[in-house]
């Protein structure tokens, strides 16, 4: 796959994650005990031998810079190619409001400088572990102009996602935004494969006509002229851009089948930033059931149906149920937590009780002291 460039497009990514994205881009939202959302698509690219990846950052990307660093954890700290975090080259604030095609245009040097023939364009909020080699191979074999990855699923989606409609040959006949009317069970992963020169052409021609939206203008408007095919992804998918979706897809990981399917079955690892945390310490009094626990924790209380990130301390007598507790939180003794999401570094004082509902979990922003 020397011939494929990866682009992770964070510009105007649909985001209803409330407090979780007040100070960070959706790409760096913590997920699954030790990951950030972007880890999934980024690792998928690396595992598919894509050695050159550009992240088109847009806003609030400082924590993302810190997370991906030089790209070493993804083996992308390379001399040639590697990982490029491209911040917006903003001269004026009004430009921040422009559509993503404008940024593709601003970053066109990245495409010109590279020798690769194909581009895979993706978003950061899709939790998946996908073999993109197979997608590109299918794209080439079928002689497609554009290939869009989708998942067939009748389940209701809590995240906001596009859906596509295809004809009998698998050609995409329509693409609908999340608010569009459709009965389609084909959920778009917003992953596109095409030749680099076609992408550059679509960018220039769309912008020239005054259009600046990649999916709506560059892709949808050209669906009759171009051969756009769907590719069915069969692995686990979580569209994580709303709080209910975040909560549901996090809890999905407590199903060992899903945990195994996402992290092990493909044979491809999900990489993330290394923290050098020691093993998790469960004390004599701890009681843990049906939970995902990361390293560096010290658990002296009870944890049930919950996800606990790295470096969390849970005091004696504390009861954590159906909750997500992010990195370095400190839960005091006899605290009771139910249907809650605590962002990083939250401290909950001794004896507090916090309770949300599964549809509207209690949300504590980063560093809050309760």
């Amino acid at each position, binding site marked *: 796959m020397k011939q494929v460039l990866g682009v992770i497009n964070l510009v105007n990514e649909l985001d209803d994650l409330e407090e979780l994205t007040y100070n960070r881009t959706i790409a760096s939202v913590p997920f699954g005990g030790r990951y950030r959302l972007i880890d999934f698509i980024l690792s998928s690219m690396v595992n598919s031998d894509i050695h050159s990846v550009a992240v088109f950052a847009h806003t609030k990307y400082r924590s993302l810079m810190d997370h991906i660093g030089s790209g070493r954890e993804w083996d992308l700290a390379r001399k040639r190619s590697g990982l490029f975090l491209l911040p917006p080259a903003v001269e004026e604030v009004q430009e921040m409001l422009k559509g993503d095609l404008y940024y593709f245009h601003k970053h066109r040097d990245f495409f010109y400088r590279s020798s690769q023939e194909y581009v895979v364009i993706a978003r950061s909020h899709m939790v998946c572990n996908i073999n993109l080699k197979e997608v590109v191979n299918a794209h080439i074999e079928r002689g497609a102009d554009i290939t869009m990855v989708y998942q067939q699923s009748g389940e209701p989606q809590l995240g906001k996602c596009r859906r596509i409609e295809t004809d009998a040959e698998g050609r995409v006949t329509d693409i609908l935004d999340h608010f569009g009317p459709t009965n389609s069970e084909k959920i778009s992963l917003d992953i596109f494969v095409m030749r680099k020169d076609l992408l550059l052409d679509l960018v220039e021609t769309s912008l020239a006509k005054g259009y600046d939206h990649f999916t709506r203008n560059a892709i949808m408007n050209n669906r009759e002229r171009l051969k756009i095919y769907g590719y069915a992804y069969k692995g686990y998918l979580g569209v994580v851009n709303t709080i209910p979706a975040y909560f549901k897809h996090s809890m999905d990981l*407590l199903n060992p089948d899903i945990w195994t399917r996402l992290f092990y079955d493909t044979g491809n690892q999900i990489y993330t930033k290394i923290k050098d945390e020691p093993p998790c310490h469960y004390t004599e009094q701890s009681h843990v059931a049906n939970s995902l626990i990361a390293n560096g924790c010290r658990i002296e209380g009870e944890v049930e149906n919950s996800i606990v990130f790295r470096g969390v301390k849970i005091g004696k007598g504390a009861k954590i149920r159906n909750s997500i507790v992010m990195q370095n939180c400190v839960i005091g003794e006899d605290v009771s937590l139910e249907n809650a999401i605590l962002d990083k570094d939250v401290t909950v004082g001794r004896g507090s009780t916090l309770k949300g509902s599964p549809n509207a979990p209690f949300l504590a922003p980063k560093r809050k002291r309760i």
Partner: protein
Amino acid sequence: MKRKEIVAMLLAGGEGKRLGPLTSNLAKPAVHFGGKYRIIDFPLSNCTNSGIDTVGVLTQYQPLVLNSYLGIGSPWDLDRNEGGVAVLPPYVRQDGGEWYKGTANAIYQNIGFVERYQPEYVLVISGDHIYKMDYDLLLDFHKKEQADATIAVLEVPWDEASRFGIMNTDEGNRITSFVEKPAEPKSNLASMGVYIFTWEVLKRYLEEDEANPASSNDFGKDIIPAMLGDERRIMAYPFQDYWKDVGTIKSLWEANMDLLEADSQLNLNDRSWRIYSVNPNQPAQYVAASAHVRNCLINEGCLVQGEVEHSVLSYGVRIGEGSRIKDSFLMPNVKIGRNVVIEKAIVGEGAVVEDGAVYRSEEGADIQLIGTSDMLDN
């Protein structure tokens, strides 16, 4: 090449025979410990945390896994533009090559490496001890005492003193004599195998030792006695914290169990003194509803469906439903089926234990080692 005040030489060539099949294909410093570490992580992390950025690792025996583990040194922040970690195997010169004959000879053969950095001091440590130590304090002590050599010592219980190399000292901490495993110890200060030498002095003794055909070329047996014979100033540096030689199956098991003590002296969670290791990059551990976990250290990538008590689980371990693990250390990627019973054991890397198997040590018997040497390969 920039000059370095101190260079560390880490002796990692030992075969570790007393660890049995655990080291049939593996150098002892590469043996797993504590769920996510290998033994060598401790001295390497001590170096980096002490501000020592140049470490020569002397290897000879089965270095493949160790070399690959050390890699570019980045896990210990030792991937440096000048210095960093360097693996030093025996090599051939124009007049032929020879294997390392002893610990002193290993350093002797690498005088050229040390001299590249023109250090004033050399720290000699070994790759088979578990401890956290600030070598910078040791160096301060060495400098303050204007010593030729400083040896870190530990007070051991008097009734165990005859198992160690014992230092006799005067009231000013100066070492007067050194006895290897004395029948009737006159002191309970045991050598930890951690030395700082003033390089200029050590170099002379290494050269003299090499010229002596009767020498076994060993630090403890030859270099230190020769220096004491010449009334060189050798100081004992008392160390108070946790230290353990993990040279046997039993001591390896004990050191793992020590981590589970409520008041463990070896705090792995100290952010100011991290123990670094190569990260296996596994997902968060999953503890099932059917599981029962008490007083354990458990790692990323584990999936626990059975009962685990007072045990250390390394990354990637699977424990099936109905199984009971107690007082045991499970190395990485061990797969335990259903209804298995394991008590007081070490389970080797990648071992697969079938449903229903029972391993229970007799009272007072040796610690069991489960898994074949084939399984113990990396």
